[in-house]
C-alpha cells in the first residue's frame, strides 16, 4: 500500500524496493514466465479482436449502468436475493456490518474481493467485533501479516516461502517447514476449520448478469465455493462496473480474463449463483443472500467522456504483469490498493489526489500495458491525463511550468539548445559524452553517460545535405527530425538522407518544426503540448508532401496517435490534424514497406553481427514489428535476436530524469541481454533509445556500438 506523503519520500521507498533482492528475482522470473504462458494461452485466439469486442460491450454496459442495476435488482429479488446500492465505501461497509448484526452472525469467512479491499471492509467489520478470515491463500497470508495486496491476482507475490512459513508458525503455534506444498496443506486444514464455524460468507464477484440477476465468480482455489455454500448468509460485494446485460457478455470476458491474468485457458472454478439456494443450516433451508453494489464514484465516472473507459477493467492484473516499472519495484510501490497501471488510475478516483499524485508520475509510458489490456483501456494515456489534472489542481512544479513556457516558443527553445552547446564546454569530453554531469543531476544520474549537444544542428546542415531536386519524384517526403536528431545526433538525420539516395525520394525539411511535445505530455503540461502540436501541424501544412518521415519512434507515435486525440475534438483542427497524422511514418516502415528497398540495393560484402532493441513507441506505439528486422537482413547484416527485445530500455524521456534509479535498472537488464547476444552493433529506431543505450554501453565499458538503423543502412548502401 503506497502512501508516501511527498514525492521525495516516495522516491525513497522506490529506492528501498529496488534493493529487495528476493522481490527483484521473483518479479523477473514472473515477468519472463508470464509472457510465454500468455502467448500460449492465446495461441488459437485472435486476442486483439476479442479485446475489442470486450471493450465495446463493456463500454455499452457502462453507458447503461443505472438501467442494468435496476434490472439486476428486480430479477435477483424475484429469486429471493436482497440487492443494495452503497453510495460510497463507508456505506457499503455499514450495510454489510448491519446484515451481520441483523442475521446474528459473528464469524465471517471471506473470499477474494478487490472491492472489499477498496472499501477496507475488514477493518470496519473487525471494529464492529466481527471475526473476519480471508480464505484465499494469498489474502490470508497478507491478512495474518497485516499487509495489503501487491498484485490483484497474486496478492502475496512479494513474499518468500520463508516469510510464509514464519507467519504460519505464528498462526498455528506449531513450527512450520518452508516447504510450499506443506504450507498449502496447513492452510487447507486451518481454513477448513474456519469454514465449519462461519455463519456468514463474504465474496466478491466478477460478473453481475442483469437479465437473470446472476453473479459469476472466477477462482482457482475453490474457496469462493465454500464461502458461498457453507455459511447460512452470503453477501457479495461488487462495483457497479461488474454489471453486464447477458450471460454471453460474461462468457466473452471469461475467454480473456484467465488467459490474461495467469495464462490459464480458464480457472479451476467458475461459479454462477442465482437467487437463494438450498442451505441446510439456514432458516427454512434457504440461504440468505445479499448483493451489495458499490458506486464510490463509478456512476460519475461512467459519464466522463474521457475516463469512462476505466470501468472496462476486468481486474485481470495483466497491466502489472507486463509493466517494467512494476517488475522493478513491486506492487506496494506501484499502487495504493489497486495495483499496476489501472491501479495508478483507480487510486486517483477511489482514494484521492493525495494517494495518487506521486504514483501517477511513475509511468514510463512504454505502452506494454495498453497492448495487452483485456478491457482495451488506454492506460498510459489516462495516467498522463491524471498527472496533468493533478498539476492543474495543485499547481505546476516550477521545472515543469518553465519547460512548458520555453517549449511553447520554438525560437526560444532552440536558442536554449544552441546556448547549451557553449554551456557544456567545461564538461564535454572528446568522445561525444559529457565527462561528468552538472551538479543538478548528480549523483543518481551517473549510471549512463549523457551525450554532448552537437556542434552544428541538423537544421543548419540542411542546405548542404539536402539532395538535389529530382525531376519526377516517386515519393514526396518531409522530414520531422525531433529535437534529438536535430540538436544531439544530427548525423542520424544525415544518414537518413543518404540511405535513400537514388530511390526517387524528394526530401524537404520544414524549418518551423519544433519539439513534438511528448516531453510536455510526460510532464503534465497539456496546454503547452497542444500549442506545440498546432505549430508543428502548421509547419508541415506548408509542404505538399505525401509522407512525414520521422526517425524517432517516440515522435512518430506521438504525432500519429496523440495529435488527433489532442486536437481532433476541435472542429477547427479535426480534419487537418487527421490529414497530418495519416502522413506520419517511421523510418523502417518507409524504407522497407514504401520504398521497398531490397538486397540488390546493398553491398554484397558480409555485414556486421547486429542485434536490435525495439523501441516501445515503435513496436507497440505504431505496431511496427517486422519492418526493421527485415531491413537489417536485406542489408546483409547478421541479425541475432536479443532476449526481451521489446522491453523498455528505461529511457522514457523525462521519466529517466525523475526516476533515475529505475531507469538505471532497466538499462542494466537491457545491457545484460544485449551482451549475451555477442553482437558488435546494437541497432534501434529511436534516438532517445540510442542516447540511453549508448550511455549504458559507455558507462559499462562494453565493446559495443549503438546506432540508429538508418546509420547502418546508409553505410551498407551500394
Amino acid at each position: 500500500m503506497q502512501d508516501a506523503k511527498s514525492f521525495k519520500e516516495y522516491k525513497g521507498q522506490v529506492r528501498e524496493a529496488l534493493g529487495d533482492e528476493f522481490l527483484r528475482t521473483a518479479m523477473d522470473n514472473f515477468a519472463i514466465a508470464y509472457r510465454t504462458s500468455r502467448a500460449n494461452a492465446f495461441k488459437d485466439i485472435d486476442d486483439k479482436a476479442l479485446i475489442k469486442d470486450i471493450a465495446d460491450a463493456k463500454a455499452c454496459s457502462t453507458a447503461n449502468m443505472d438501467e442494468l442495476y435496476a434490472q439486476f435488482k428486480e430479477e435477483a429479488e424475484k429469486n429471493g436475493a436482497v440487492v443494495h446500492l452503497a453510495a460510497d465505501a463507508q456505506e457499503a461497509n455499514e450495510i454489510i456490518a448491519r446484515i451481520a448484526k441483523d442475521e446474528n452472525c459473528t464469524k465471517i469467512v471471506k473470499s477474494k474481493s478487490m472491492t472489499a479491499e477498496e472499501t477496507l471492509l475488514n477493518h470496519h467489520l473487525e471494529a464492529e467485533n466481527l471475526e473476519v478470515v480471508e480464505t484465499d491463500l494469498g489474502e490470508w497470508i497478507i491478512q495474518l501479516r497485516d499487509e495489503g495486496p501487491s498484485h490483484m491476482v497474486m496478492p502475496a507475490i512479494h513474499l518468500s516461502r520463508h516469510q510464509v512459513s514464519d507467519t504460519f508458525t505464528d498462526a498455528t503455534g506449531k513450527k512450520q517447514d518452508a516447504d510450499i506444498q506443506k504450507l498449502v496443506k496447513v492452510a487447507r486444514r486451518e481454513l477448513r476449520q474456519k469454514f465449519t464455524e462461519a455463519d456468514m460468507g463474504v465474496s466478491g464477484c466478477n460478473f453481475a448478469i442483469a437479465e437473470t440477476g446472476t453473479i459469476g465468480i472466477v477462482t482457482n482455489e475453490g474457496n469462493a465455493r465454500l464461502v458461498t455454500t457453507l455459511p447460512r448468509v452470503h453477501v457479495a460485494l461488487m462495483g457497479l462496473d461488474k454489471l453486464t446485460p447477458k450471460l454471453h457478455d460474461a462468457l466473452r470476458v471469461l475467454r480473456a480474463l484467465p488467459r490474461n491474468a495467469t495464462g490459464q485457458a480458464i480457472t479451476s472454478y467458475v461459479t454462477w449463483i442465482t437467487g437463494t439456494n438450498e442451505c441446510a443450516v439456514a432458516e427454512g433451508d434457504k440461504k440468505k443472500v445479499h448483493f451489495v453494489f458499490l458506486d464510490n464514484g463509478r456512476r460519475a465516472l461512467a459519464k466522463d467522456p474521457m475516463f469512462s473507459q476505466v470501468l472496462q477493467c476486468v481486474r485481470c492484473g495483466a497491466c502489472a504483469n507486463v509493466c517494467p516499472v512494476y517488475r522493478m519495484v513491486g506492487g506496494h510501490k506501484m499502487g495504493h490498493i489497486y495495483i499496476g497501471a489501472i491501479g495508478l488510475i483507480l487510486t486517483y478516483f477511489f482514494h484521492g489526489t493525495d494517494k495518487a499524485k506521486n504514483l501517477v508520475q511513475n509511468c514510463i509510458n512504454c505502452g506494454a500495458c495498453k497492448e495487452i489490456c483485456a478491457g482495451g483501456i488506454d492506460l498510459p494515456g489516462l495516467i498522463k491525463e491524471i498527472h496533468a489534472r493533478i498539476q492543474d489542481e495543485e499547481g505546476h512544479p516550477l521545472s515543469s511550468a518553465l519547460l512548458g513556457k520555453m517549449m511553447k516558443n520554438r525560437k526560444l527553445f532552440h536558442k536554449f539548445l544552441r546556448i547549451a552547446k557553449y554551456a557544456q564546454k567545461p564538461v564535454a569530453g572528446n568522445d561525444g559524452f559529457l565527462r561528468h554531469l552538472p551538479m543538478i543531476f548528480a549523483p543518481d544520474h551517473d549510471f549512463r553517460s549523457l551525450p554532448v549537444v552537437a556542434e552544428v544542428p541538423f537544421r543548419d546542415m540542411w542546405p548542404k545535405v539536402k539532395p538535389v531536386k529530382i525531376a519526377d519524384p516517386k515519393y514526396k517526403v518531409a522530414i520531422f527530425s525531433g529535437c534529438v536528431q536535430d540538436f544531439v545526433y544530427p548525423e542520424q538525420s544525415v544518414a537518413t538522407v543518404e540511405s535513400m539516395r537514388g530511390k526517387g525520394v524528394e526530401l524537404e525539411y520544414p524549418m518551423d518544426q519544433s519539439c513534438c511535445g511528448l516531453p510536455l505530455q510526460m510532464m503534465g503540461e497539456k496546454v503547452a503540448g497542444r500549442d506545440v502540436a498546432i505549430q508543428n501541424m502548421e509547419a508541415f501544412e506548408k509542404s505538399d508532401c505525401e509522407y512525414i518521415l520521422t526517425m524517432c519512434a517516440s515522435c512518430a507515435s506521438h504525432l500519429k496517435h496523440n495529435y488527433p486525440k489532442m486536437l481532433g475534438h476541435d472542429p477547427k483542427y479535426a480534419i487537418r490534424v487527421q490529414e497530418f497524422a495519416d502522413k506520419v511514418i517511421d523510418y523502417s516502415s518507409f524504407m522497407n514497406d514504401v520504398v521497398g528497398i531490397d538486397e540488390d540495393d546493398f553491398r554484397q560484402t558480409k555485414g556486421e553481427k547486429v542485434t536490435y532493441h525495439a523501441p516501445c513507441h515503435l513496436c507497440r506505439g505504431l505496431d511496427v514489428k517486422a519492418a526493421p528486422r527485415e531491413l537489417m537482413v536485406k542489408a546483409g547484416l547478421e541479425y541475432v535476436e536479443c532476449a526481451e527485445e521489446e522491453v523498455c530500455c528505461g529511457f522514457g524521456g523525462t521519466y529517466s530524469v525523475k526516476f533515475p534509479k529505475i531507469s538505471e535498472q532497466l538499462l542494466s537488464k537491457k545491457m545484460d541481454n544485449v551482451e549475451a547476444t555477442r553482437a558488435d552493433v546494437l541497432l534501434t529506431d529511436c534516438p532517445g533509445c540510442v542516447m540511453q543505450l549508448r550511455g549504458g554501453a559507455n558507462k559499462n565499458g562494453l565493446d559495443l556500438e549503438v546506432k540508429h538503423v538508418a546509420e547502418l543502412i546508409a553505410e551498407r548502401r551500394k
Partner: protein
Amino acid sequence: MTVKSENVKLFTEKAELVSAVVSEVSSLAEAYQYTIDLCGKKEACKLLVSGCEEGLSDKADALCETKIGKTIAAPSLNKKQFSALEKQCVDNGFQLLKDGLRKHLGGIDIGFTFADHGIAETGTIVLNSRSEELRIATMISEVHVAVLPKSKIVADSYALESYMEECMRKADYTAFITGPSRTADIERVLAIGVHGPLELHILLLEDK
C-alpha cells in the same frame, strides 16, 4: 444427442493439460468399479485427509479427528444406483453417503457425481449443483469422480448459453470445474488442492 469425436478428443486433451485424469467407461457399473478401486488405493495405509499430518492448531487438528474410515459421497445417485454402489462399498469396508454431508466437513475421500455437460475448448465439466449435498460433495472430497456422457460435450461455453440461461431463471448454483483445486500464491509455485479436491477424475461414458 450425438457424440462429436473431435469434441471428445479436444476435451480429453485440454482436461489432461490441467491435471485432470480422464478415462473411458462403457457403463455405470464400470464407473462404480473405477471409484471403488480408486478409494481402495487412496493412501492405502492411512485414513487421514490431506494436511492432517502437518503441524496444525488445536482446533484444526480436532477437525481431522472427525474423519473415521474411508468415505464416498454420491448425493445425486437414484435409489437403484445408490444400492448398487453401496453394495460394493460395504464389501470393501467403505462408507457410502447420500446426504448429511455437513457432518463430514473435515473431509471425505471421494465425491461421485454426474456432470451435466463438458466444454471441449477448456476441458471443463459443468455441474448444476442446486442440491446443497451435491455442492458440498464436490468441495470437501479429496478426490472428485465425475461421470460425463460423451454426447454432453460441446465445443465451447457459448454453446451452453441457452442451457445455462434456462437454469438461471430460478434460484441456481452452476459450477464450471476445470481440473483440481489449485493455487500459485506462494512464490508462484503451483500447488494442487488448497481448498477443493486434490484430484479430478473424469469418466467419459459411452452413450448407449
